[in-house]
């Protein structure tokens, strides 16, 4: 249904040459996601703190869903104590043909990206009418 394309350990991924998609990302973090199914389709939720709308790039190409986010800090001032670093987010999933790619919608709210991936018509469960002769 939804196969992960990103190798979670990005450092290892980097050693594999020839992967155009990852070469462009100098440093990236894999955002945690929830993926669940509804009667209408799939819902993908990804935590992307610090990513504004114009820093987010979600695209589907050849059944490959790519989430890219450019995160930036909001607080001014000089850093005196650090527990995290906001770098770029990157994750890819392979979609099955059963997702209606034209109807995918996305929403970004409170640092969480919600993607709605509606099932293609032929993939929805259908009740078969039985005619009694």
């Amino acid at each position, binding site marked *: *249904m*939804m196969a992960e394309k990103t190798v979670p350990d990005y450092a290892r991924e980097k050693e594999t040459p020839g992967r155009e998609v990852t070469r462009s990302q100098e440093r990236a973090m894999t955002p*945690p*996601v*929830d*993926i*669940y*199914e*509804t009667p209408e389709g*799939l*819902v993908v*939720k*990804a*935590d*992307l*703190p*610090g*990513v*504004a709308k114009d820093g987010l790039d979600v695209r589907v190409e050849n059944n490959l869903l790519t989430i890219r986010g450019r995160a930036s*800090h*909001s*607080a*001014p*001032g*000089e*850093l*005196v*104590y*650090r*527990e*995290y670093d906001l770098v770029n987010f990157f994750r890819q999933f392979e979609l099955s043909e059963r997702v209606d790619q034209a109807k995918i919608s996305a929403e970004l709210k*409170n*640092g*969480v990206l919600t993607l709605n991936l509606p099932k293609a018509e032929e993939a929805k469960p259908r009740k078969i009418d039985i005619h009694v002769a």
Partner: protein
Amino acid sequence: MAQWNPFTDMDQLRRDIDRAFEEFASAEAPAHRFAFLPGRGPRRYPLVNLLEDKDNLYVEALTPGVDPQSLNVTVMQGRLTVSGEKSRVAADVKPEAFHRSERASGKFVRTFDLPVEVNEERIQAEYKNGLLIVILPKAEKAKPRQVNVKVA
């Protein structure tokens, strides 16, 4: 006569081990979900960065998906407390509908000792793109003071 079956023994051993770990991870809250929660997980939540300039301290906390209404920021006697709740995905989603569940949810609280005295009356907080920013103006006596050096 009962026959010895090594698989039964192995199964029993597995159950014993499971039971031994049950206290750490109950069935409804598997251990990996703790990662985001305070106290129970190995990580502190939320993670924070502390910044400062001449006039203010800034605390930036990583809180994606937290309902801004649930956020509670208090300062008392030089201690900053941030609490809130990261809501679960829609409650009507059945567990078997999940393909992946990596985003933890739940209530959190974290307290920090502030390094300098702050003006508690003028603290501000804002929530933007999943980041909580608390602006804490430094108390007058905590601000750096320029000392003129006289040349004799």
